[in-house]
């Protein structure tokens, strides 16, 4: 049954998409910022995995840790030093600021990594499993599993740690959180760092499946838009569900409409959702 193959493809892709969108959704939800840098963070995570593998032989799945640390650090300081200055301004100002930062980062990556597409070619790939008529690419499936583990740990951090509770508190009521003694600026920086770390991890996970160039960021970013709105802005379980839904949408949409219209289909869905279900498929507003 070809239907089940598309279903499997969509779900496997969906895990990676969920990881792409979770950090973006967290930042949008807590900081009210549409972070256009997110796509560039993913691309940088990819290059960390790529160079770790080609130069040092470190498997991309292990580079996820490096990416999280490096991108988390970069994100923390970008938020603390730059974005925090205007974080309460209108969407016009914050969006333009992240756009400017994206231009800088993309230009830097273009100069340092050259414009051609790169992909990690594993020396010992896990291969493809046959389940009846179903083909499962194991490397990709493994990255999806890791992606879901990362999302789960982010969700646990938000639920169980005091830092996580502070983030949720700031999201619900910045003023009240401030009065309770929460350092809002630091909490914003940590939130942004978590978002960036997840983006970096997603980039490393993508490196075994997809070729990427320095300017691939906007492509991932536009997917994050749709997934984030699908699942409900700021909701981590929503991002997971939204990612899976988006994976299925792309997998079946490519069959029905042709893959050249994938983005159009996604954006039409995005606009319809914004109009009729602005709080996402699940209708959740919190975490």
């Amino acid at each position, binding site marked *: 049954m070809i239907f089940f193959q598309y279903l499997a493809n969509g779900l496997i892709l969906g895990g990676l998409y969920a990881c792409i969108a979770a950090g973006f959704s967290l930042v*949008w939800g807590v900081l*009210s910022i*549409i972070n256009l840098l997110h796509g560039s963070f993913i691309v940088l995570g990819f290059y960390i995995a790529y160079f770790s593998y080609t130069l040092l032989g470190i498997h991309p799945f292990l580079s996820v840790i490096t990416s999280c640390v490096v991108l988390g650090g970069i994100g923390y300081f970008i938020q603390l030093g*730059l974005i925090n*200055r*205007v974080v309460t*301004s*209108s*969407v*016009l*100002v914050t*969006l*333009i*600021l992240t*756009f*400017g*930062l*994206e*231009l*800088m*980062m*993309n*230009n*830097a990556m273009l*100069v340092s990594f050259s414009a051609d597409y790169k992909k990690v070619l594993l020396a010992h790939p896990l291969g493809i499993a046959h389940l009846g008529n179903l083909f499962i690419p194991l490397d990709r499936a493994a990255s999806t599993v890791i992606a879901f583990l990362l999302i789960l740990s982010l969700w646990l951090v938000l639920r169980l740690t005091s830092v996580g509770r502070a983030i949720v508190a700031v999201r619900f009521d910045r003023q009240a959180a401030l009065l309770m003694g929460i350092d809002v600026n630091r909490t914003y920086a940590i939130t942004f760092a978590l978002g960036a770390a997840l983006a970096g991890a997603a980039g490393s996970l993508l490196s075994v499946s997809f070729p990427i160039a320095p300017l691939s960021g*906007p492509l991932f970013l*536009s997917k994050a*838009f749709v997934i984030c*709105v699908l699942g409900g*802005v700021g909701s981590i379980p929503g991002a997971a569900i939204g990612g899976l839904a988006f994976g299925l949408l792309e997998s079946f949409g490519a069959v029905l409409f042709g893959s*050249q*219209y994938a*983005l*159009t289909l996604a*954006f*039409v869905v*995005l*606009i319809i959702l*914004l*109009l009729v279900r*602005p709080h996402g498929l699940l209708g959740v507003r919190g975490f």
Partner: protein
Amino acid sequence: MTRPQLLLLVIFVAILFALPLLGNNYVLRLATTALMYAVLTIAWNVVGGFTGYPMFGMAAFFGLGAYSGAVVQSSGYPVALAWLVAIVIGSAFAVVLGFILLRLRGHAFAIATLVIAEVLSELTNGWTSLTGGGMGLNLPFFGWSPTALAIFFFYAMLGLTAVALATTYVVAHNRIGFALKCIRQNEDAANIVGIDTSRYKIIAFTLSGAFAAAAGAIYASWTGYIEPSDVYDVLFSIKPIIMALLGGMGTVFGPVIGAVAFLALDEFVWRNFLQLHTGVLGFLIVALILFLPSGLSSISLNRLWHKTASA
């Protein structure tokens, strides 16, 4: 308008009209580009400045106008008709889009308008028989000398800028302008006191779309070759906003000042840092947002003088 303002305007217009006399095609090209961005910024300002809606979709109207005009012109019709068709299509699209999207506010509106250009770009790419797809579209050559062409398109863009400016002036000093300002301050309250907010928002959106489409159509005839990734470039959505921020949002002449100032910076960067052009552009944007959030008008020359004098 105060008297010094009027004087400045007259001088500015006189210089503009005299520019072709210089006979320098490079200066003319720069001036035409500046005027094109001025039109885009004026058009953006009608929605983004007057109503305060975070509009990120100018590239969609610009690209649509460019392609509508280019398709008509390359089928052998006169240039004027091509531009007219572009304006009609641009306005019609803006009416439909405005009807759908202007229900959204804040971040949702920003995202929705941001993706429209991408959708149009992909559709243009797919419709190869009409648009040439990714190969782009060549427009028929006028057969004029380069200087004559430069002067013609300069005056065309100047005319469009004048019309756009006059329109926003009329809008700002009339019922519509008042209604749009009410929407910016508090849309729900405006609704309650009996302002038909959806109608005025759609009118503003349509004006914006029409001017951007006209600028796109003139741009297409001017450059003679367009492709989707060129005319639907997200920078056409972002730059007008930066120019408006620079010149002063929601004012009538601010967009023109902002466009000229930003373009002068942009050209300087292009000429000196070819490899790092986008990076330096990004740096300028970041610096503007962080250090000059209320535009050039926030620099008080008087204070600056005192600071330097006392240092």
